[in-house]
């Protein structure tokens, strides 16, 4: 039986989430896994923006920051449940992406890069400077999601690490499923068409501006949700989450793994999440190794790690 890429991706993810815990020697591995899944959600958004629609963003951490601070602030100020706060964060991100995206998506390549970068820096600056609201660069506590207690009530007693591992894993699978559905939808086809050539897409009647904006808004929501999950899981958040380096990290993860497919990007997120943990023994060389990995993969495996590995194993492109 031949699997479609969509079901293959979902099966791989489900197996990864469900089976690897059997090999975990300690609770710390759940933490690393949960981080991997959160990053996986963020890069799935980048796949939609960059992989499907061919647009660049160097400011997506700004949306992660909005998602994260929504979870920190809304429960305190408006008594909102943290889960609803995450939804609110996603809604704000979507509206903001819509407003910002309209003018800046007219730009191309590096100009789009600097415009999104400017947006990200503005968000991180507000989070840093509006001390009365955000408590500034030292960060702010985030309320407990409370879902673990609910599960306990149902007789499912998970440790904190286990809960976040499975919860983020579930969110990632849902996120990947939605992204894959989008890929196969008319919108997805339009996006891929304009990725190939905007001019050509326009000639055959694709409303280029509208579809680019859609991709931007959807990817912003992914980043926002990832930010919310990070904040809720850490129960503490600082403006670093919206920083330029975080934006770069998201794009790097996606492109490194293979921005053309959801699974590839998640693979990239996995590599860059695990690498610093593996390299602690060589902490001094960590930065050099990280830089080198980015260089080598991008120069020699241009489509990203996963597609290149698959090609090697199967001998042809799938």
């Amino acid at each position, binding site marked *: 039986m031949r699997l479609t890429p969509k079901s293959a991706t979902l099966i791989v993810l489900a197996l990864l989430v469900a089976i690897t815990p059997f090999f975990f020697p300690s609770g710390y591995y759940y933490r690393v896994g949960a981080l991997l899944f959160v990053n996986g959600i963020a890069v799935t958004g980048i796949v939609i923006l960059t992989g499907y629609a061919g647009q660049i963003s160097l400011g997506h951490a700004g949306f992660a920051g909005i998602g994260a601070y929504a979870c920190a602030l809304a429960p305190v100020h408006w008594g909102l449940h943290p889960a609803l706060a995450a939804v609110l964060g996603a809604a704000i991100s979507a509206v903001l992406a819509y407003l910002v995206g309209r003018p800046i998506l007219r730009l191309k390549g590096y100009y789009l890069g600097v415009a999104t970068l400017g947006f990200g820096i503005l968000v991180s600056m507000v989070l840093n400077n509006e001390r009365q609201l955000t408590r500034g660069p030292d960060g702010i506590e985030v309320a407990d999601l409370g879902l673990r207690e609910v599960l306990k009530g149902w007789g499912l007693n998970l440790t904190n690490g286990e809960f976040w591992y499975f919860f983020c894993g579930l969110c990632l699978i849902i996120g990947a499923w939605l992204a894959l559905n989008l890929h196969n939808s008319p919108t997805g086809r339009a996006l891929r068409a304009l990725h190939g050539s905007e001019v050509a897409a326009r000639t055959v009647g694709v409303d280029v501006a509208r579809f680019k904006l859609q991709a931007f808004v959807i990817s912003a929501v992914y980043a926002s949700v990832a930010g919310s999950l990070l904040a809720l899981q850490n129960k503490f958040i600082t403006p670093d989450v919206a920083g330029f380096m975080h934006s770069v990290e998201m794009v790097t993860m996606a492109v490194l793994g293979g921005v053309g497919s959801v699974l590839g990007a998640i693979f990239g997120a996995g590599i860059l999440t695990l690498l610093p943990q593996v390299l602690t023994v060589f902490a001094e060389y960590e930065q050099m190794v990280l*830089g080198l990995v980015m260089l080598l993969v991008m120069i020699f495996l241009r489509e990203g790690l996963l597609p290149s590995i698959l090609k090697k194993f199967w001998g042809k492109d799938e």
Partner: protein
Amino acid sequence: MSELLQFLFSGITVGAVYALVALGFTIIYNASDVVNFAQGEFVMLGGMITWFAHAQGLPLPLAALIAIAATAALGVAMNKLMIEPARGAPVVSLIIITIGASIFIQGAAQLVFDKQIHSFPAFSGDDPIRIGGATILPQSLWVIGGALVVFLALWLFFTRTLLGRAVLATSNNRLAAQLVGINTNFVMTLSFALSAAIGALAGVLATPITLTAYSVGIGFALKGFAGAMLGGMGNPKGALVGGFLIGLFEAMTAGYLSSQYKDAAAFIVILAVLFFMPQGLFGRKSTDRV
């Protein structure tokens, strides 16, 4: 009045540093359509190597020369090892390659040198010069002069010399340039060497004012990139004006509005300019080839 003058001095000092970084961006972009995010690391290396050589007892001018030469050599190596093999890669990949190079250079610098903040003596002393109730440091004049001289030299190079025109031709259409007999590989190598040398020069000139450490590169790269984009990528005039403008916006915002949001002002201006002029102030119009 003296207040305004002081803000102006502050703005052009910082702006001159940004302009130098932006000029470095311009050269590489002209030759290869690559925005080199490691440009800031060239600035860092200019400062750090000069500091290191000076601390080993070498006279400052010699230390500075060594720094510029070594950084230029690194620029050439970067081109040969990273950019040439990656020819034709999409913009996102190129961004990641140069950011990867930047992270790698930073990691190496913290091992070779250290993680502390350093400086070396200003070239013409620390006694401020008074003009109309405001003050400016002699070193600021060095930086401003450096930016102007580099700009003039580049302008002459690109408009008056055969080689300079070859660079522009390569940038416009690589294949056509090759067909008319331009050695495009040499042009690329030259551009990277020049750009790295200018970056290092910026580091040498600015370090007595800004101080240096292994991690300062990314800040310079961001502001220089913003300056180059504001002016219009690929145009030396744009880089110069863009760099100075960003410095002035920052100083004026800090002086008259809020020092907390001075960086925001610069980026809001960029967003506004790009909204009305998607190619920046002096950028050339581009059309998609289908």
